[in-house]
């Protein structure tokens, strides 16, 4: 007998922290398969923590949802940093972008391929995803399911337990490790079948990120990313980015009054504290006469531009109605000086400056 027939099969499940991937893992665990989770960090993941920088989100649980989901399932989770490798996916997606800067299909292929590599290295037999046909306009369609399996090199070792009944038989089914009748035929964007299944498994708490778990499907975030790339191009730089670059896009109000500089103004105490950590790498401004935000200036501002940044900082401070306020400006060399400025009137913050 093939030894693969007698040992306990092992599967690795892509765990996002959302409900579908939890259910998919659980459906396979129920069939006696040893399951462990894998989660990839691209740098664009919407995480409770990053959101929790803001005061308004302080009541949300501060935790890694994938880790939390894995603990609920009683499985191990392996979190893999793919920030560097992911740049190729985002910068040159073979299948293009979705509605915003989201390369969903290439991303899914990449993650499944990475999961397969991990499975091969660690002696796991197959891969599980929580994909549902028709759920996502770009990557989760009937036509894309075989593309993902083929281009990730995983072939018939990829199991989608939530919609398996619509798909061809997989290797683990042929081997008798799992039973097609114990898998599902969920399709479309309704969440009802998943909620019913969650109830059956007594899963009563799960993360429900609006718009999925990736910042790249967010219109405002995508605009900021495109602006970052345009600014780099203007400086003859490539679209390459650092993790700091892309995290900064999540924090504060972003303005580009002129091509040569960008102003990031914190929206609350939480964001001020976060931006404070970057002070040594940027020119920054803060009011000394009133309470107000922390402002970071990126790019190559002139003296005049910094004066405008100071007036904008004042505009978003408690001193916005004062005749003048005192703003401390600290440049990259660590030298500080005080500017006495008039807060910029609201109607002088031009709409086209907003990124």
């Amino acid at each position: 007998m093939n030894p693969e027939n007698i040992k306990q099969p092992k599967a690795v499940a892509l765990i996002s922290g959302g409900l579908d991937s939890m259910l998919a893992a659980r459906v396979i665990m129920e069939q006696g398969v040893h399951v462990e989770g894998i989660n990839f960090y691209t740098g664009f993941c919407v995480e409770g923590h990053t959101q929790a920088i803001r005061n308004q989100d302080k009541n949300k649980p501060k935790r890694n949802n994938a880790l939390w989901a894995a603990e609920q399932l009683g499985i191990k989770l392996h979190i893999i940093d793919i920030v560097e490798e992911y740049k190729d996916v985002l910068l040159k997606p073979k299948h293009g972008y979705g509605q915003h800067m989201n390369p969903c299909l290439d991303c899914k292929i990449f993650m499944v391929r990475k999961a397969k590599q991990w499975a091969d290295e660690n002696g796991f037999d197959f891969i599980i995803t929580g994909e549902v046909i028709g759920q996502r306009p770009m990557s989760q369609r009937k036509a894309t399911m075989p593309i993902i399996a083929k281009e990730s090199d995983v072939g018939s070792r990829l199991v989608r337990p939530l919609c398996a009944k619509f798909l061809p038989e997989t290797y683990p089914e042929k081997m008798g490790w799992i039973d097609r009748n114990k898998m599902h035929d969920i399709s479309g964007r309704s969440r009802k079948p998943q909620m019913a299944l969650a109830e059956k498994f007594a899963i009563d708490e799960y993360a429900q990120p609006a718009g999925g778990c990736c910042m790249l499907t967010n219109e405002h975030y995508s605009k900021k990313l495109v602006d970052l790339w345009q600014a780099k191009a203007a400086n003859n730089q490539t679209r390459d980015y650092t993790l700091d670059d892309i995290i900064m896009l999540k924090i504060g109000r972003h303005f580009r009054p002129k091509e040569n500089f960008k102003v990031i103004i914190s929206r609350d105490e939480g964001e001020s504290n976060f931006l404070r950590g970057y002070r040594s790498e940027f020119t920054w401004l803060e009011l000394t006469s009133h309470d107000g935000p922390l402002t970071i200036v990126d790019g190559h501002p002139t003296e005049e531009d910094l004066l405008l940044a100071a007036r904008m900082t004042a505009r978003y401070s408690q001193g916005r109605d004062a005749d003048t306020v005192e703003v401390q400006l600290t440049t990259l060399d660590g030298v500080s000086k005080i500017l006495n400025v008039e807060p910029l009137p609201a109607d002088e913050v031009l709409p086209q400056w907003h990124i």
Partner: protein
Amino acid sequence: MSEITQTLNARRLLCPMPLIRTQNAIKKLQFGEILEVICTDPGTEYDIPTWCRMYEHKLLLQEQRETVDEMVEYCFVIEKGNKEAE
């Protein structure tokens, strides 16, 4: 408490980077060796203890410390368990 083998500076890193760095640092240690991790992301207060439970590493200490500039740091001291993170 036994001596700290290695200290990991995970300040300013946001979720899940402190956890990824912790996971990678623990992998390189021997059973019984001790890793200290210092973070500024409050989410680590949940994530690191959860991860330790999951892999049966011993969390010897978990505490909040205030820094000189009145920021909060989260400090964890972890003894590597004998069930290696496979």
